[in-house]
């Protein structure tokens, strides 16, 4: 399989083009899609290639998500564009109460093949209503699969897998990462959901991260290497189901871990990871597991404030030095 360097945005469009060609039941529904190929241009070319299958809606998040659900229950496979991940609040009943539960509460009668595509994350001066990282709400909601890719190849492989999955997937993609480029396989490329990737081998500490945290950690790893600390970098990619096997394998070797995510600290995925590590891998640990996360406030607007609130490369370096006592 040959590879080219393309952006995360191009990876989205490529996965959708291939899957919409393969499967006529896939369609895209959301706000502002047709004229601009999506508010971030993420679906560029698709409205022309698949007329009638990229559907503009009124500003009605409740009904957009619920309509996706109704379509999924009746034989279609929608990708629901949430515009901004922050707007999940406007459709929370449809996501948490209906989509996540319907198969279970109907005793397995329903198949719910849908993807909620939710651009999230801060760093663009978009303030508190357009900058959140809300994945932990959905990890806490049984019935949803939660995917947060970082690199373009992961975007393509995981989006393809999500579109083919018969269960509801909420797919968070960081807005600041759309332009990130990387090698992506040409043609059909599917990455199984629920598999983490060891993106850098190391012996001294395991960094567990995903989404924008991956790039932050990659920078930190370079600095740490200069200090003689070799970190193993695990990109979780799917947060639910969680690939704890890969985490455990790494931790049994390094005996130390730092979790890095952009979502705020309290009750974030890091809390869950630390809990599981301490209950299942306690005997292997040589130091407490630390978390690097955003501070527990809404994302503020002014650059000085936003920068202060978000986790930084230095925070990762400091945490790793702390757990390695160096």
């Amino acid at each position, binding site marked *: 399989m040959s590879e080219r360097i393309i952006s995360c945005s191009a990876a989205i469009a490529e996965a959708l083009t291939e899957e919409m060609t393969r499967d006529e039941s896939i369609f895209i529904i959301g706000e502002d899609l047709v004229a601009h190929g999506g508010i971030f241009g993420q679906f560029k070319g698709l409205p022309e290639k698949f007329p009638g299958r990229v559907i503009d809606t009124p500003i009605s998040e409740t009904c957009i998500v619920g309509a996706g659900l109704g379509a999924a229950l009746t034989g279609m496979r929608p990708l629901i564009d949430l515009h901004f991940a922050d707007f999940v609040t406007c459709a929370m009943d449809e996501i948490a109460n209906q989509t996540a539960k319907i198969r279970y509460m109907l*005793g397995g009668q329903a198949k719910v093949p849908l993807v909620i595509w939710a651009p999230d994350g801060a760093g663009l001066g978009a303030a508190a209503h357009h900058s959140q990282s809300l994945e932990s709400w959905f990890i806490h909601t049984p019935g949803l699969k939660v995917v947060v890719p970082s690199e373009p190849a992961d975007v393509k492989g995981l989006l393809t897998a999500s579109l083919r999955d018969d269960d509801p997937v909420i797919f968070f993609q960081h807005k600041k990462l759309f332009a990130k480029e990387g090698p992506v396989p040409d043609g059909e490329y599917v990455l199984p959901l629920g598999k983490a990737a060891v993106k850098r081998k190391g012996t001294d500490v395991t960094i567990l991260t995903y989404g924008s945290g991956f790039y932050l950690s990659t920078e930190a790893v370079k600095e740490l290497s200069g200090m003689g600390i070799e970190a193993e970098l695990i990109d979780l990619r799917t947060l639910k189901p969680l690939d704890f096997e890969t985490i455990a394998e790494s931790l049994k070797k390094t005996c130390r871990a730092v979790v890095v995510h952009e979502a705020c600290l309290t009750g974030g995925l890091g809390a869950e990871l630390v809990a599981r590590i301490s209950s299942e891998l306690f005997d292997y640990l040589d130091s407490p597991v630390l978390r690097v996360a955003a501070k527990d406030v809404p994302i503020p607007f002014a650059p000085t404030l936003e920068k202060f609130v978000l986790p930084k490369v230095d925070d990762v370096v400091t945490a790793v030095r702390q757990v390695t006592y160096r």
Partner: protein
Amino acid sequence: MSEDAETLLSLYRTMMTVRKFETLAGELFAAGKIPGFIHLSVGQEGSSVGVCSVLRPDDYLTTTHRGHGHVIAKGGDLKRMVAELMGRKTGYCKGKGGSMHIADFSLGILGANGVVAGGFPIIVGAGLSIKLRKTDQVAVCFFGDGASNRGPFHEALNMAGIWKLPILFVCENNCYASTTKTSYACSVIDIATRAKGYGIPGVSVDGNDVLAVRHAAAEAVDRARRDEGPTLLENKTYRRRGHFEGDPQKYRDQSEVTEWEQKNDPLFRFATVLKKKKMLTKDWEEKIAAQIDADLKEAVDFAEQSEWPSPEEALEDLFMNP
């Protein structure tokens, strides 16, 4: 629209079935045989049966917490319904849903819903899916007067309106939303007038007149099948039982209920019509009543003899591919 005797008697039979099912459910609940809580549609049979009588098996519907009547009228299996009410493994949802989550995808019943107004967005999706798949199905959303005050009502009627989706929104205005009077909680008297705000037809009918409901529903369904868009149909009726079984009903005088029972019972009214046409005989009525009673007894026996789900089954059915 004029119906032959067979059709009319079949409507009456279904109405009797709903009435007897609901009455029995109330008894089973009082006897402690149904866990949780249930909401009965006694007195609203004209709406459920009238609307469903013009639907095809492949048409979709969503219903509410007060949904037994819709499921029966769409052809639901009494045994699996009772078993689900009683939480048994053989129930529609294997005991995972109960009264408020009965569904039968083979009959297009996309589920009752525990959230008031929960069916609106789902039915819009079913309507959109019909359009995308280019079939001539229709999708029906049953909801109460209370649901028409929630946001999803607005989003759904607007969206169905702009896309001309083949949807029938059926409001069963039964004068109460939980314990609150509709006259207090609704800014309009006729909920159907709200249709105007969405550029779609809105029709109010006497919901206790099964033929009036049937004819209004038939017209709306025909419109939808002709690709002319959605309709809001308001069936004015009355909730004779409490919001839930066991509701102390401090919000109304019992005389109000008695008056509706005596003057505006949909079954009695329809029986009078049929008798005038000399279609309904005492013999037939007794024979059918006995058949329904036997079917219901069989359903209860089936449910009582069915196993409870084993505790570990609580961990099944969450995902297709865990």
